[in-house]
């Protein structure tokens, strides 16, 4: 009896150890981040990582790079399992990338691009900014570049000639800072980021003024390579994102991000951006 019990106990313990080893051996999920949101707040990043890690049942490494191009490149070369991109790079590589989820902000998966100037600047619209120094966020950003560039194209102008100088700050918050500090006269910024900053840094946004808002466009989505969309880690990420609002930790992360949650997205959500991309083609 004692021997039987001992053997059972041994086998059970060995099986338990094998199961535990398999769970602990799961590779770290690498999620790329672009400066589409408040990436300067370590608390926000940590909150998101913890919430997703808990939801996915595995460790998550959040990978940040300075430009959209770098993050997109890492995703395309499989150095990342998924990335929170922008609609513009997603559409640029729509043949290789697919949508995992899209954030819901103020009740919908859409946002706007803002054209901002200094609070005391008399400019009323984009046309008034001819000859100004302008700040873009990133050349691969929809709200931080594509919208203003296509608006100019629609006006029959070019970024290079319309502005006396255009600089890239590689961060929506940086655009707001550049305009607020007077480094540049105007800037193209993510409307969601500007609104979020208006809540947490009202002194900063108070020194800027929104003179133009774009139409509602698809919110920057979380993407993965099309060929890995069905993989377990990506599925786990999708599940974790979609159910983020169901846990306290997830709700805390969403609250920090000032988002309502995540939802499934279809390519049609980004038709507006696709239209602008076509306008930009020569």
């Amino acid at each position, binding site marked *: 009896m004692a021997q039987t019990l001992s053997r059972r106990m041994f086998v059970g313990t060995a099986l338990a150890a094998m199961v535990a080893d398999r769970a602990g051996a799961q590779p770290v999920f690498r999620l790329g981040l672009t400066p589409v949101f408040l990436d300067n707040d370590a608390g926000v990043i940590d909150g998101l990582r913890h919430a997703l890690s808990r939801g996915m049942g595995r460790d998550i490494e959040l990978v940040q790079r300075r430009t959209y191009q770098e993050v997109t490149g890492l995703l395309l070369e499989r150095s990342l399992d998924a990335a929170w991109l922008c609609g513009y790079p997603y559409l640029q590589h729509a043949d290789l990338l697919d949508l995992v989820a899209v954030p819901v902000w103020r009740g919908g998966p859409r946002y706007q691009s803002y054209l901002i100037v200094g609070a005391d600047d008399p400019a009323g619209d984009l046309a008034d900014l001819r000859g100004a*120094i302008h700040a873009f966020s990133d050349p691969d950003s929809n709200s931080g570049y594509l919208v203003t560039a296509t608006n100019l194209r629609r006006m029959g102008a070019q970024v290079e000639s319309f502005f006396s100088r255009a*600089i890239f700050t*590689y961060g929506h918050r940086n655009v707001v800072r550049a305009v607020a*500090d007077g*480094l*540049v006269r105007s800037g193209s910024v993510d409307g969601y980021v500007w609104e979020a900053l208006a809540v947490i840094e009202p002194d900063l946004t108070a020194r800027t003024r929104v003179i133009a808002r774009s139409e509602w466009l698809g919110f920057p989505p979380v993407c993965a390579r099309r060929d890995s969309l069905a993989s377990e880690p990506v599925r786990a990420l999708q599940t974790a994102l979609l159910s983020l609002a169901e846990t306290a930790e997830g709700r805390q992360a969403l609250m920090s991000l000032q988002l309502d949650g995540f939802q499934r997205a279809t390519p049609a959500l980004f038709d507006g951006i696709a239209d602008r991309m076509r306008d930009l083609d020569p």
Partner: protein
Amino acid sequence: MTWFAPIPLSIKLPLLAAAMMVLVGTVASQQVLRSLAQVQDARIQELARMHVEGLSVALGPLVLRHDNWEVYDTLDRAAQGGEGRRMVLTAVADVRGRVLAATDPRRVPIDSDIAALAGDAVSLDDLTVDGAAPVLSLLAPLSYQGRAVGQIATEFDVSDLLIERRQALLYLIMGNAMAIGLLAVVGFLAMRKMLHPVTSLARQMTETQGKPRSIPDSDIPRGDGELAQLARTYNAMVDAVAAKAEAERRLAERERFVALGRLSSSLAHEINNPLGGLLNATDTIRSYPDRPEVVRQSADLLDRGLRHLRDVTRATLDQNRVDPETRVLGPDDFEDIKLLIQPEVSRLAQDLAWSVDPAAVSASGGPAGPVRQIVLNLLLNACAAAGKEGRVGLIVRSGAGGLTLQIANTGAAMPRAALDRLLGDGPLSPGGGVGLRLVRDLARKMVGTVAHARENDVTRITVTVPTPGEARDAQE
């Protein structure tokens, strides 16, 4: 500096001591301020060097890429640091001098020329917190990997250093003023105390009122310093002068007693001789009362003898009158003198030549007392000098300068000491009498002169006494 000369030494030296302290304080303050300026310059240069080198490392690649935002972001973050508050403005330009970004983009926009900002900027080694400018401008090359890729212009706020310097100056002035004031007062009082014996000595010497006074022992500084020795020496001198004056007084007293004794003996002789004759006359009258011619002759003899005694008595009284100056000189005075000198002349069997011009005497109008004293003194001296059977003479007449009294005698010449007493004002040599100095003093008081001559073994002393009117004119 002529204004400085009249200031007393007791004020001058303390003032000089205070002035020296002010000078030392000023020089010390200058040194402190210079050191402070050097420390501040070194501090600001070190800070600027670190600032430029730090920015060069951080901004080099960004400037090469012309990344305006990153340059601005780096500058902005650097400006948030502790020392960043000293940097009023930092602008970074590319190698052509076009501004890439500045901490105050509104003042120094992108693409503006950095030369406009660096108009009065200096290089790193020339950076100095000097003058009143609260902001210093620096223009330095931005080096990266050994080559200049741009320029950095920085404005430093040094107002706090200037305030520190002004405060240091203020504190130095206040501290030095208090210290110097205190030291000056202490020095002034100490010098005054040290110089007190000198002041006391000067006061004792200037406030003698005819007789020098000793410095009280309480005023003599303790110890054996120069001032104590000076005070003791002065007191010794005062004592010596007093002792000398006392000796002279006693000498004069003695001489007076000698003269008086000599005169008394002469007078006794002059009175004794007639008295013998007078007593004989009274004996004769008693013996021969019935012989009228004998009585008459005896009575005449008595009369002459008594008249002679009366004259001698009157002359003596006149000679010793307490206030003889009040009486004007007359011929009778010379008769008195003759009467007084006669016993001495007779005793020495001398030949007396007497020539007095009564008109000149009456016209002189001089005081009787001093003239009588002068003539009597000189005649007594002349008798003593002429010796036994010598010749003594007096000539009184009117001269050019007033009344001339000439006393002559044979015998030995006057010794040098006697001549000094008669003709000079020098100190009296010990041992001699004061009669001759008295003659000189009385003559000077009457604005007269005394002359001495020695011819053919005859000594002539000539005293000229001006009339009172001439004497007043001469005095004026």
